[in-house]
């Protein structure tokens, strides 16, 4: 009976998921610290209908050179029905790149300020800083 009790005790100890709690009561998480970037990506345009402009890209890079090369550390799958996108990043400085495309037919896109005609794209880039446990918000705008 005693050996059965020890067997159960051993099993219970092995099966327990031990959580490391710091003296001030916080759970010690070995993951690196993160802050949040909220990229606000509205679709606005002066001369073209906004339902003919779509989000196409939203990327985060470590610096301008990496951004230029397309070596992004995170990217969002942008869609029509979502305006705000969150990124969880370690503290530091980053670059953000966003782009939109025009869906109008004929020469409306070039007349509206997009390079080329249908599928012509505009790009915008920003720098931002992430602070641990804080939220940084970037409002994305494109030149007319």
């Amino acid at each position, binding site marked *: 009976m005693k050996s059965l009790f020890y067997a159960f005790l051993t099993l219970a100890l092995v099966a327990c998921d031990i959580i490391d709690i710091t003296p001030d009561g916080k759970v010690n998480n070995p993951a690196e610290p993160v802050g949040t970037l909220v990229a606000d990506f509205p679709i606005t345009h002066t001369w073209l209908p906004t339902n003919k402009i779509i989000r*196409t890209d939203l990327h985060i890079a470590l610096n301008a050179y990496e951004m230029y090369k397309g*070596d*992004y550390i995170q990217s969002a*799958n942008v*869609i029509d029905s979502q305006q705000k996108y969150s990124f969880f990043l370690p503290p530091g400085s980053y670059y953000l790149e966003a782009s939109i*495309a025009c869906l109008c037919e004929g020469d409306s896109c070039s007349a509206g300020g997009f390079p080329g005609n249908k599928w012509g794209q505009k790009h915008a880039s920003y720098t931002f800083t992430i602070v641990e446990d804080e939220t940084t918000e970037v409002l994305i705008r494109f030149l007319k």
Partner: protein
Amino acid sequence: MRYLVFIVLMGLTWSCETEIDVVDESGSVPVVYCILNQDDTIHSLRLSRSYLTKNAQNPPVSIDSLVVKGKVNITIETVENSQVLSENRLLPYPISKDSGFFPSDLQWIYQANFKMKVNTLYRLIIEIKDWDYVAYSSIQSLGDFDLVDPGYPEARKIHLLDDHNPLIHWTRSQNAAVYQVGFRVHFKEIRGDQSQDKSIIILLTTAFYRNDPGAFYTYSINSNFFYKRLAESIPVDNTLLRQFINTDVFVIAGSESIGFYLNAQEKQDPFQFFDYKNLINGQGVFGSCKTKETKGFKIDDQSLDSLAYGSYTKQLNFLDSDGHRKN
């Protein structure tokens, strides 16, 4: 009076049947599988029949036990406002069946060519002349729906990494009870100076939805799950290189009967699985399905590199975003 008693006694004796027919042919019922593809005009039906077995353990003694012989009339009627608009006869369609569990050259498949409408009543009638038997069923065809996201493959690439899962959004299809979401991945296999284009279907989920989602249903693709499924579906072959071409995203809506059938299959409940039917005087499933697909998505460079060197798929020898393979 004595004669009367004698006559009644004789009648009773003759009417008694002492032999019991354990293999009663009349006990057999048609077994039907017919899933109408609303995106196609060719519709097929498989017809067989039930046979006597003990605890579903004994295979049939001969192929004759499975095939419905003789004259069989199979019709699918289009019904609108209680009026039969059209009758579509399904005719025997010769197929060479492979060496499966029940290999046979006898007739199994019937086909018809007609275009289906959405949200319309379809009635299946199977008349087996030799048995003097009729089995029937009806379904309401599925309503139209849209695959909302991902969209615009001309301008958007899919990012398949766990920092941001891709989302699949689709609107509700009226009369649908089940949806299957998947990718069709196109890739090239390169061996020496020869290459061959290949495709593979990765089914991501089977979702049972009947409620109205308001705008659309959502499925978030777990990128690791995608790579794991891809690795399970493509054989490892160190003698070749593979190059990702693009991927199609699709959602298949299925009717109530398919939903119930798949649900029973998923639960591995043999009683529910074998008991389910939506045919009167028969066994099997009569349903319909409809597919929405957006073709030709590229995946971004980071996802291509993950496909090439990620833990699940590195053995598949996919080229990376630079078109190289580092070993």
